[in-house]
């Protein structure tokens, strides 16, 4: 049943008892053309575009627990394409374009809200670095504005402009950036993929990749072996664990990134704001919660939880930036296991094992990439060739010396 105001009203008449499951709950079949490991945003988007764009529908998405249980379901929902490097800007901009039509494509309200993303700067050098980035965006046809302190004050009068350790000088603003409802993205892609015949199989953990003579044959799972012509990994923080079974050692470390939500309060923060002199970024959800975060904890972890030092660090920066939130209470903190790569940029590529495809290295910023990641990964799986906007995301870039290192900090994942 299509979703619309009309269908909602129609169903109200029957007490909402006629709605069908958003996706089926099928048992795994013995064989698929493509098995996608990982029911996060990227895996589900890949399935959707495989089916929709490439007509490949004998596809299964295998998820070890419930779909969206990974980072797709726990991120701070920021979408933007305000990157510097030519490897990144076109890709993330392609993603923005897909976001801009996502609700209509999926017939699911993913609440893409282009409320703007403002990165504050606090020094001349930072201003110039942001100008460099903004100019790079403009050269790629992406919107970017460099605004001054007065313009920031007009947008966010309650920031601390008087007692600052690192005075706010201005910001880089991408108005088309914003947020999207994380869970809805997962469910929307799942429902759309399912409607085209994709099997979404929850509570099905991939335990190993089976291959013979350098060609993939399928995957071992907690629900038995599932054969496949092609196997695609979209496991985010868990990628290394499965890839090891195919003999791959990856340029990936799994780290914990925390996020925070406050009690619901009347909305007063209308854009996404990032502090440039500390680790803190914030937006306010449509429910009223302040959704905020900061840096990763810095150590390898699969535990989905972090520690007090980062919690304090984030709140210190939050209070330095907007002391108005001092009496607002943190309601919940959590962590996600993020796939930090050696240059801070993603990997979408084939592997030495034929038929095995890799999608990883999303660091703390792969939610915004969800549509383009799915699109490009589907393209690679279907055609064997990298998509035009993802050519910089190949595995061999570390050997050839072409890292896409936005921060310029080198091969140390916890600094990206």
């Amino acid at each position: 049943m299509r979703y619309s105001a009309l269908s909602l009203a129609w169903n109200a008449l029957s007490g909402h008892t006629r709605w069908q499951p958003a996706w089926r709950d099928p048992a795994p079949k013995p064989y698929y053309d493509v098995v996608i490991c990982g029911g996060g945003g990227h895996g589900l988007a890949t399935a959707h575009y495989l089916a929709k764009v490439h007509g490949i529908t004998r596809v299964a998405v295998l998820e070890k627990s419930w779909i969206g249980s990974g980072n797709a379901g726990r991120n701070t929902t920021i979408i933007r394409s305000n990157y510097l490097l030519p490897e990144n800007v076109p890709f993330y901009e392609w993603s923005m374009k897909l976001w801009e039509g996502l609700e209509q494509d999926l017939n699911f309200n993913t609440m893409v809200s282009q409320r703007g993303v403002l990165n504050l700067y606090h020094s001349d050098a930072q201003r110039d670095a942001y100008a460099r980035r903004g100019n790079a965006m403009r050269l790629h046809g992406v919107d970017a504005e460099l605004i001054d302190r007065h313009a920031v004050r007009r947008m966010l009068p309650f920031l601390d402009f008087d007692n600052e350790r690192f005075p706010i000088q201005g910001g880089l603003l991408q108005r088309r950036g914003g947020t999207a409802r994380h869970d809805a993205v997962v469910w929307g892609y799942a429902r759309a993929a399912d409607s085209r015949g994709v099997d979404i199989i929850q509570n099905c953990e991939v335990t190993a990749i089976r291959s013979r003579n350098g060609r993939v044959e399928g995957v071992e799972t907690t629900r038995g072996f599932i054969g496949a012509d092609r196997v695609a990994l979209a496991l985010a923080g868990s990628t290394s664990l499965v890839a090891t079974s195919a003999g791959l050692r990856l340029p990936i470390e799994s780290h914990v990134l925390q996020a925070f939500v406050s009690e619901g309060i009347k909305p007063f923060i209308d854009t996404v704001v990032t502090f440039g002199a500390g680790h803190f970024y914030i937006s306010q959800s449509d429910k009223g919660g302040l959704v905020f975060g900061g840096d990763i904890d810095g150590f390898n972890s699969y535990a989905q939880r972090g520690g007090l030092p980062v919690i304090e660090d984030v709140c210190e920066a939050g209070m330095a930036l907007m002391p108005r939130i001092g009496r607002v209470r943190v309601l919940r903190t959590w962590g996600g296991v993020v796939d930090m790569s050696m240059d801070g940029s993603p990997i979408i590529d084939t592997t030495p094992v034929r038929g095995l495809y890799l999608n990883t290295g999303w660091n703390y910023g792969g939610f915004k990439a969800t549509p383009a990641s799915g699109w490009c990964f589907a393209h690679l799986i279907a055609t064997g060739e990298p998509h035009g906007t993802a050519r910089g995301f190949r595995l061999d870039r570390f050997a050839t010396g072409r890292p896409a290192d936005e921060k310029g900090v080198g091969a140390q994942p916890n600094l990206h």
Partner: protein
Amino acid sequence: MTRSQAFRLAAGGFVDRARPLRFTFDGRPMTGYAGDTLASALLANGVRLLGRSFKYHRPRGLLSAGPEEPNALVELRKGARREPNTKATTVELFDGLEAASQNRWPSLRLDLLSLNSALAPLLPAGFYYKTFMWPRALWERLYEPVIRRAAGLGRAADGHDPDHYEQAYAFCDVLVVGAGPAGLAAALAAGRAGARVILCEEDARLGGRLLSEDLEIDGLPAHVWAEEAVRELSGLAGVRIMPRTAVFGVFDGGTYGALERVTDHLPVPPAFAVRQRLWRIVARRTILASGAIERPVAFAGNDRPGVMLAGAVRTYLNRFAVAPGRRLVLFTSSDDGWRTAAAAARAGMEVAAIVDARAAVPPAVMALAPRGATVHLDARVREALGGRALAGVALEAQTGRQRIAADLLAVSGGWNPNFALASHHGARAEWCPHLVGFAPSGAPDGMVVAGAARGMLSLARCLADGWDAGATGSETLGFRPVGARAFSAEDEPSGVSALWHVKGGRAKAFVDLQNDVTVSDVLLAEREGYRSAEHLKRYTTLGMATDQGKTGNVLALGILAETRGAPVPSVGITRFRPPAVPVAIGALAGRHRGREFRPTRLTPTHAWAQSRGAVFVEAGPWLRAQYYPMPGETDWLETVGREVLTVRRSVGFCDVSTLGKIDVQGPDAGLFLDRLYINTFSTLPVGRARYGIMLREDGFVMDDGTTARLAPDRYYVTTTTANAVRVFQHMQFCHQVLWPDLDVQLVSVSDQWAKLSVAGPKARETLRGVVDAGSDLSSEALPHMGVAEISVMDGIAARIFRLSFSGELAFEVAVPAGYGAALAARLMQAGAAFGITPYGTEALGVMRIEKGHIGGNEIDGRTTAADLGLARMMSRKKDFIGRVLAERPALTAPGRMQLVGLRPLAAGARLRAGAHFLAPGAPAHAGNDEGVMTSVAFSPLIGSWIGLGLLKSGPSRLGQRVRAYDPVRGGDVEVEVVQPCFLDPSGERLHV
């Protein structure tokens, strides 16, 4: 005035009737007593409508008497101190308290948004995912603004938080969380054993349920026993009692986060007192004795003001001496609920009926029924009737349906152990049929759970369990055994059977009262495939409100299980996360806000520069003098121009103490540096300095700086200001981890030396007035890149380095940091005849750009030594960090962006760093992007803006023109590609 407290009992309770306190709610003045919470004081005054729900704006009253409260949220205090979403049940009453209801318009009684209730059929769980999609453009313009207007509960404060917070550490052998009977017994045992004990209690008053119940321990009224226990604990040297302190999170390694509400019970914090304090408690053992939370039942209208948890009714009666109503109906499926009927009758309330869903109850329970109360077994409340207040209940009894008038409906569906903290590290919960609830199975390392928190539901068992946990815990840590201890206390009946949902009734039946999640929402989620407990939560928002589902979560799971005909644990249980109680952001930040957000590093000449009117700039942690305006100068460009010209024509000096400085000693010091830098230091003669470049292991430039050799086995290394800490750590890594066999000793001397760079043609003459007799500054004795140990200012040991960043004859003079200010003052005197000027980081930057020296903008982590024109420095004769990977194909390929100088074609045209280069005439398109302007300056000597940049194949394009394209600032300037060095390329000025 006290007469207004119409629902206050004449006697009993722990309120001080001699200390009346005035307060207002929505502007209405009232009076309560010391010892009251805001909730109990409002109840005493007969106020029952306290809030509106999130979605439907339904009228709501008190459900509970504690931190699990979903309904009674208020805005406490005003203006910059306004605290939204404050649970009235946790606010200690103080004189002058002001509270207001929230999320209603125009008033609490008449809330127009309650129209949402009428629209409810259109607004089931997740309705917004199905609509508002068309037309797309209306989402940001119409739909979302409307949704956001309705969003949120209370309002954030109006201004910057005026109060202070702080963070602190505490350490103990045994941490006890909760001071109910279990916690008190645990603390007594551990304390008597001699352990260092911390007892944290969220409440202002210790005792837990003992304050709410009418029980005895060892022949004493339980609350008296609690007072004695507290007295004994206070006398034990190792025991620290922390009331008003909630433990909110379990972190790794036995670290606990706790929030102390230091002065929240006062109108404003007294002078020098903080509002709240964040504690990080490090405990070797922890006993979680956090009690249990009562569970409501889902039935139509179960959210009306006047429907209250049975245990909370007892709390109001016994602890606060308030009758929450006049005529009570009890609806329960647990033995414990019956105690409420007894307590109410004892307090003089009318008990109209006891409705128990069970077909039979034990005689001991039946005995609790007050005389005059009708007992209905195997009966249910179908609906709570009324509007803004409860008027009665509709009953489904063996005798048929009937209505009973009542203004208070006490509900008990059993008790859920409150073990959230035990689950913070992922320990699972197990289903306990005898509780009809979950209990913890497992706990974080070092923690045991005791008392009701692990499902012990009688007083005698809680006491014994707590004692045992305290005794065992301290004994395993090596403290003296205290043995078992028998308490004489009641083993109250605690039978319960499952009672989740009563079907029928017209009104909505709620499971999550704050977020307005109803039974039908739960069933809709199930129907639509959101079957995992976590999907159910996210789709319906169940348990996501400020109470985190403390009362509603298990109820929803029970309902789902019942619907599926499956056991409750098969439905799953959502994850618990810190904080167990919401914590103010300000408390987590402590003192680190405003100017104290991060420490400020001050240079040795800071105060001196301040006295000269310097303008300062943040440079990482440092504050540095940016420029020194003189009277009459109107803008910074003028000042900086003057500073530069003074240096170029005469002399000036600049504090460069912020550079990182590392003393490297040992027989292998030279070898060590050879391995770190791309060039060679083992061949550097003693008394000379050399510029060096170090790479990261990936072959890109990490840092640069000069290194001097002070002795055969001693070097003095400098790093850039920005990388000082990182380079030192990197050196320690290389030494300790990669090459521990080398005999080198490293120590930072960054703060030991004040370092002033004296530059300009008159630098030597100026310095002659500073150095002590016998110090030879001639080029013979101290050639360019020469280093000497001398003395200055009559006997102060100093080091002098003939190094130049500015391109002028220049000396860096280093004195022990305490003499930096004196040296600056002395330089001013000595250079007075030459018109000496101090200069700041701006002029420093101008001069380095004029000379084409690279800085942080060029060393951006993506440039190679060759990109920066320094390929020749790279030694081929040795291994060094980064050598191998610097040879990767793309790092050596032609066409990389490389360092050049840039000059505008139009005189006076302004350059800006961050502009990108395009070939003239090439469309502004990423494919034509050829590089970026990295640094710019106005050169007063050249009379033009100049720049450094990284340009594709730059060095081979000298003389060509490119556009410096800067759309974000509206700039588009044509520039000529020139050598990076604009001034004195042959370096003659260095040698005057």
